[in-house]
């Protein structure tokens, strides 16, 4: 039983006495393993704008990006503004026989919660409000922190959790869902699309653009290592790793 096995309480408790040892880095910084098939291969020297793919399974190993941090910061800043406004104004409204109703994004979750569907409400809140907030907020901080020549360790800590926020942030799915709901409701009432709906439509294009423009590998190559003793080149010339 591995000491990393968190599902075994005994092993986990035993592990808390002793932290697992740090691995040692390789002398050849261009040696890389494919995340899709684990094939060991040697990458060519990095050249601007060039991408590398796994020789066996075609998974992208390294993507060339230009002007990554500036573009990422600009896009994320725009996303942050859109996100804040989109969450504070109504998304969808309707009028029926003189009666009016409208809801914000969080208002949908609140209605579920009040109706006794707490679990689903929590999931809606997570995927439509909390995860996107983390996705945008973390990236804003990362893009600013990574501008130093040697980004500090906390940048890496944020980058560890960013992919998870990305996985559970589902604004594009939310937008489609709202459009379907809108069509459904149009049978009974006059639908009034709110401001948030249009902001959301813009956000849905900006969020993938952030992901495409952000060069995580470049930041990892420059970052301060957690275990500085292990061959961390403090001049920042650590080679590319895919």
């Amino acid at each position, binding site marked *: 039983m*591995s000491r*990393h*096995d968190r599902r075994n309480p005994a092993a986990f408790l035993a592990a808390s006495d002793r932290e*697992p*040892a*740090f*691995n*040692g*880095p*390789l002398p050849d910084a261009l*040696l*890389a393993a494919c*995340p899709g*098939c684990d*094939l*060991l291969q040697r990458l060519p020297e990095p050249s601007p704008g060039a991408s590398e793919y796994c020789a*066996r*399974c*075609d998974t992208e190993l390294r993507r060339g990006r230009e002007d990554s941090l500036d573009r990422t910061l600009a896009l994320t800043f725009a996303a942050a503004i859109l996100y804040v406004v989109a969450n504070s104004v109504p*998304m*969808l*409204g*309707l009028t*029926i026989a003189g*009666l009016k109703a409208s*809801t914000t994004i969080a*208002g*949908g*979750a*609140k*209605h579920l919660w009040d*109706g006794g*569907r707490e*679990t*689903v409400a929590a*999931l*809606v809140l997570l*995927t*439509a409000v909390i995860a996107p907030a983390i996705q945008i907020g973390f990236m804003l901080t990362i893009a600013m922190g990574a501008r130093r020549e040697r980004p500090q360790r906390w940048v*890496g800590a944020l*980058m*560890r959790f960013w992919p998870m926020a990305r*996985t559970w942030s*589902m604004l594009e*799915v*939310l937008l*489609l*869902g*709202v459009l379907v*709901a809108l*069509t*459904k*409701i149009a049978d009974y*009432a006059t639908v009034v699309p709110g401001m948030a709906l249009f902001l959301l439509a813009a956000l849905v294009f900006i969020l993938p653009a952030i992901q495409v423009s952000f060069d995580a590998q470049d930041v*990892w190559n420059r*970052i301060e290592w*957690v*275990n500085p003793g*292990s061959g*961390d080149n403090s001049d920042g010339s650590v080679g590319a790793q895919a």
Partner: protein
Amino acid sequence: MSSTVLTAMDAGLQRCETCGLLSRPVAGEEEGRCPRCDEELVFRKHDSIQRTWAYLIAAAICYIPANTLPVLTTTTATGADSDTILQGVILLWSPTGWPLSLIVLFASIMIPSAKIITLAYLLITIQTRSPRNTRQRLRLYRTVEFVGRWSMVDVFVDTFTAALIQFQPLMSIEPGPGLFFFAAVVVLTMMAVESFDARLIWDAANLTEVSYA
């Protein structure tokens, strides 16, 4: 494919899932921590096959009430009416609304079931150590990973329909018990995808196709 295929695991090296750094465990240790980003390193995800099966079976069980219990209950002055997901699809079908109806049909019924079947196929081919179609199977996994989130769409449709249509006693719509199970299917299949280790597809192929000198 050449006969000199060597994986990082064969070479005793570990690739960090977070930062991509390739590193070597210190002598006498099997697994360690990434010196660059502190992530705990493993050669392959622990108990990947068992955990993926567990999530998958749980999802398959929840899939039944998700489709048989109502997700929306419409109350009007004349009485109450409950709709399952499939009934919702049929209701949405109209000369102008049929594209949306198809979207919901795909996202809510076909994607979750295709996801469960595909992951089961991937697990079985790994367990029988099949050396065939490795590239296609990896592509299948990537597709499932990418498409899976879209099945959340029905949860959002029902959430916002119910939040808006509140005109008691004229008409009101409330979410039904099926919605919980449906959301559970989405979350469980996403966790199954997360616990699956795609590199296992190639490990089985390596064993049968490649002989090391």
